[in-house]
């Protein structure tokens, strides 16, 4: 099992969710986050005061998937989230030790 964490542009969230649902991912967790990468921040100007905003708003998606579909899931996220412009985000993949469905007590692949 793998845990896929993807940082994407917030407005791409719906497309990514659809793409993941279509290829069989059962659930995802979404968090609003801020950060910087190569895109850097931007400046905001309020009357005479100028502020550099270092951290831009992004959306973080987490999905636990079976090893068998991890590559397709990565492709789905990549395809749906790409605009080709700087700031599209990144995908991180980790090994996942264990998964438990709290309601039934199922574990491993059965719990995904």
């Amino acid at each position: 099992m793998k845990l896929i964490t993807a940082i994407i542009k917030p407005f791409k969230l719906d497309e990514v969710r659809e793409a993941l649902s279509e290829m069989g991912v059962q659930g995802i967790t979404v968090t609003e986050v801020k950060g910087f990468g190569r895109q850097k921040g931007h400046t905001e100007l309020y009357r005479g005061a100028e502020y550099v905003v270092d951290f831009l708003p992004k959306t973080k998606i987490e999905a636990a998937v079976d090893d068998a579909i991890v590559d397709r899931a990565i492709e789905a996220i990549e395809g749906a989230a790409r605009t080709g412009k700087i700031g599209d985000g990144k995908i991180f993949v980790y090994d996942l030790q264990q998964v438990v469905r709290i309601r039934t007590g199922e574990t491993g692949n059965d719990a995904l």
Partner: protein
Amino acid sequence: MKRILKSVILASALLLGAGSSQLVMADDVKPAVVAAEPASAPAAAPDSAAASSGAAPAATVAAAPASAPVAEAAPASAAAAPAAVPNKGDTAWMLVATLLVILMTLPGLALFYGGLVRTKNMLSVLMQVFMIFAVIIVLWCIYGYSLAFTEGGNFIGSFDRVFLNGIWDPAKASFTTAATFSKGVVIPEFVYVAFQATFAAITCGLIIGAFAERAKFSAVLAFVVIWFTFSYLPIAHMVWFWTGPDAIKDAATLATETAKAGYLWQKGALDFAGGTVVHINAAIAGLVGAIMIGKRVGYGREAMAPHSLTMTMIGASLLWVGWFGFNAGSALEAGDVAALAFVNTLLATAAATVSWVFGEWMSKGKPSMLGGASGAVAGLVAITPACGYVGPMGALMIGLIAGVVCLWGVNGLKRLIGADDSLDVFGVHGVGGILGALLTGVFAAPSLGGQGIFDYVTNKMSADPYSIFAQVTTQATAVGVTIIWSAVVSVIAYKLVDLVIGLRVPEDEEREGLDITSHGESAYHS
């Protein structure tokens, strides 16, 4: 002589001579008129503005035709001048105008300011504006109105109307009236009391923007009470108080009536709706406060971006709408001058919005919503003293100039001054107010489409040539007196409050935010 003439009564033209800036006072010349009330006792009872015009208080002749202009009435000395009756249309308009000015403060100004601070200080700003409004209204009715708008010295009025005494005589079922700028036209004095109350309240509310996000709530209230008493009331009296036009019949009565007016009124300063009294007065108090209270913790190093420009836009829009009550209402009657002030307010504000936004677009690269809202307020401020005296194209010019000059006020000038005027009270209200006051002297010139100076003796435009230079000098005198007066009172008041309660909150409270630490609540829950 010429100078005296000029120095005095100026005004908005109009056939009848609707007139100049705020004014008035109900004095016995035109006291309460109540239907069916026979000419009994000399003017309503305790009216002490009495002394006025030597004219023994005109009797309250009830059935007298209200229409006859006072001017045509019996000679000054004679007792029975027909008393004017308020026109219901005028009264209704002035009540609406008063409501509009209330709307400017609650919630207009509060939201305009509130949106500009950080989330953690939102409620503190709303609360300061809200509470100041309430406190000032109370003080206004107790002693403020009396000191500002009764006959006393040239710098301050008297205690004749303390507790609003003498306006209503329940036993006789009579109410006094307040004069307007037109002879024979009056409004109920209670309407004038309420209308002017809202001006005092918004002026005091304006100040807090300069030291937002760090001042102690109790200190703010204490300061405002002192400043209201010793700066707002005298300046309002100096600029706006006169006994009304009705007693003016010839050069002699003009001189005697003028002698009773406020100091700056006598000098001939033009301030239709409050450039000096409201905006410059408040802006100086704010600037002095920003300097004496000191900069916010982290000023210049940490981001202090506005938390909701949406609120600021709503607030600015409510200010714009409410300002029609402020400016057009300052005509004190529903007539031609009110209409002129209305159009000028509409046009100058639009022009200032355009010039600020394009100025910002060209110099900074982007046209911002905050720029739009700020430009509108700058235009409103600048046209305030001029709106009843200048023509529409004069208003357009004042607006266009105000937009770019105030844009400089919150950029170059702000850096030059170096104070942390949190919400740019001085940059917008101070700069806009001074500019508007001076330009009033320019664009009031008949040669530039303005009204010139109204002569209440001949009841038409003054025959003397209008001197732009002389009028601008007079305007500058009024500006200077206001700046110095307000600054001196402010320094003393802040010092006093600092010694007794301390001006600002401790640093940790400032960091946590005034909403929680001063008021025990938060504006937003996520």
